[in-house]
């Protein structure tokens, strides 16, 4: 018997008025797999992500998470089912401290998430938030207002907040976007050190980041899946070269 995939997408489509942003996308991501989704700008990668995470429901097809149909569940319910995500442009709580950002992220999937009681110093969720901060190397900035962080630190926090709730499926939307050459390797190390049993889907523009990281690569264009294959074959696929590398002209 084959294991239930972490995600099963069947004929998933998303339309905004006259624009068909995602069309007929079908693929599975196995448990523990690391999948990269590549494609030029406007290929529908982020829309597909948002459809999986529940920002909006698909207009066609079904999405299953660990075998359960989640196509029409709201985002917060999907998060409680085990999806953690980052955003292409950091969506953080700028008015709160780094620790409070992570603390809020830790508690979102807990049963007592709605509480009027201020946590004590020895609160287990607060302690866990500090551990997460250490994992993403922000321990020295715990009390700093997030609005005052540098871009690189914001990206680290973005990943930290996605990890804080210990998701079973991690969705990373261009986590390295806008990072300097100094910051980039640090973030990559962070991603590579994530537990091997965590299922990860990664949207990435940069082949140098995506290919060493992924077990399988899915290439999208104009809202459709063009090809799904191993990184080695993708690198040598003439179609991929044509639609992706050909136009980008910089990555090998």
């Amino acid at each position: 018997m084959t294991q239930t995939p972490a995600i099963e997408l069947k004929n998933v489509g998303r339309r905004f008025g006259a624009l068909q942003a995602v069309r007929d996308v079908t693929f599975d991501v196995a448990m523990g797999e690391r999948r990269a989704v590549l494609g030029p700008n406007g290929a529908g990668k982020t829309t597909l992500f948002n459809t999986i995470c529940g920002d909006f429901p698909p207009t066609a097809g079904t999405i299953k998470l660990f075998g359960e149909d989640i196509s029409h569940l709201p985002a917060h319910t999907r998060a409680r089912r085990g999806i953690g995500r980052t955003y292409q442009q950091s969506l953080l709580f700028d008015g709160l401290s780094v620790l409070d950002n992570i603390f809020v992220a830790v508690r979102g999937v807990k049963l007592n998430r709605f509480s009027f009681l201020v946590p004590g110093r020895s609160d287990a969720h607060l302690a866990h938030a500090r551990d997460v901060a250490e994992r993403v190397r922000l321990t020295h900035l715990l009390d700093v207002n997030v609005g005052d962080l540098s871009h690189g630190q914001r990206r680290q926090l973005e990943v930290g907040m996605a990890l804080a709730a210990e998701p079973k499926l991690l969705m990373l939307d261009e986590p390295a976007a806008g990072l300097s050459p100094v910051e980039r390797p640090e973030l990559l190390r962070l991603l590579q050190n994530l537990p091997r049993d965590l299922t990860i889907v990664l949207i990435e523009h940069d082949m140098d980041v995506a290919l060493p990281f992924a077990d399988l690569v899915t290439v999208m264009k104009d809202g459709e899946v063009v090809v799904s294959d191993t990184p080695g074959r993708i690198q040598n696929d003439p179609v991929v070269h044509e639609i992706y590398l050909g136009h980008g002209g910089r990555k090998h």
Partner: protein
Amino acid sequence: MSAWLRTPVGMASAATLALLLLLPAILPELMPQNQARFWLANIFGRAIIYGIIAMSLIFLATYGGLVSLAQMSLAGVAGYVVAITIDGAAPSIVGGLSYATAIPLGIAAATLAALFVGLVSVRTRDIYLLMITLALAMGFFRFVETNLAWFNGYEGIRNVLGPSVFGLPFRDPHVLYYVSLTVAVLLYAGVLYLVRSPFGLVLQGIRDNPRRVAALGYNVALHRIAAFGVAGFIAGCGGVLATIYNIGISPGSIGLGATVNVLIMSVIGGLGHPIGAFIGSLIFAFFDTFAASIYDRNRFNTLIGIVFLVIVLLSPDGVIGLAKRVGALMRRD
């Protein structure tokens, strides 16, 4: 707590509280007895009472990013429930209840009404939220104004004298002042506590980024409605006090003017910290009372309008913002 008291904010808060507690003893030293009593009840007492209502608006605006114009109406819900149900009001509509029962009932009604406002407006933000809460407020105002059976229409309900406190009448300026101050301090401390709780942090998260809050597993709508409930509770407490302060309630006290006044107080004080509500309310009460001696009673709106403009032009985040900037300048020198 003791560490907090050593911070500049802690020291300033403790000093302000001490000053407010001693105010009834200080005022008679500065002015004749009858003027001191007037200042205590009609300037400071009133500022504290309306400050509570303004704080309910500031709580929603500062921590939830939700500017609601329904807060004065919610205060009115509590005031009307008390006026309708207590013994001795004129006219007596339901009557029969003591203040000990009617006041909690009024506050509960305001909280429930606020949850309803939260539910109705849950999908709106910014200008749309402002409009929908204004529409609800004006709907309630018109309903009250035209309904004779329950609200005695335009006349309203008089003779709501308030309970006696330790054998003293509520109308005594000292009683009015100290009761209002106690309620305000408790609610203020409650707000400062609440915004550090998980609920308060999530609410601030919703203000900054509702999409992210949902992606973390929180029900954004539920938190927003609960925030309205909390604000309704605060407004309800203020509404009960305001009704007793005014010895009754009429549609005029929840009309468009009263609704906008709460917003003006909040903006003058500063939408950035709950203390702004009381600063704004004090400035408002001062100008409202002394417009006649400063210029002309009938020119109050012009006067408060000018004060509003000057403060907003000088400091878009109100008196608090101004104080913060002055503080920063002083630290730099």
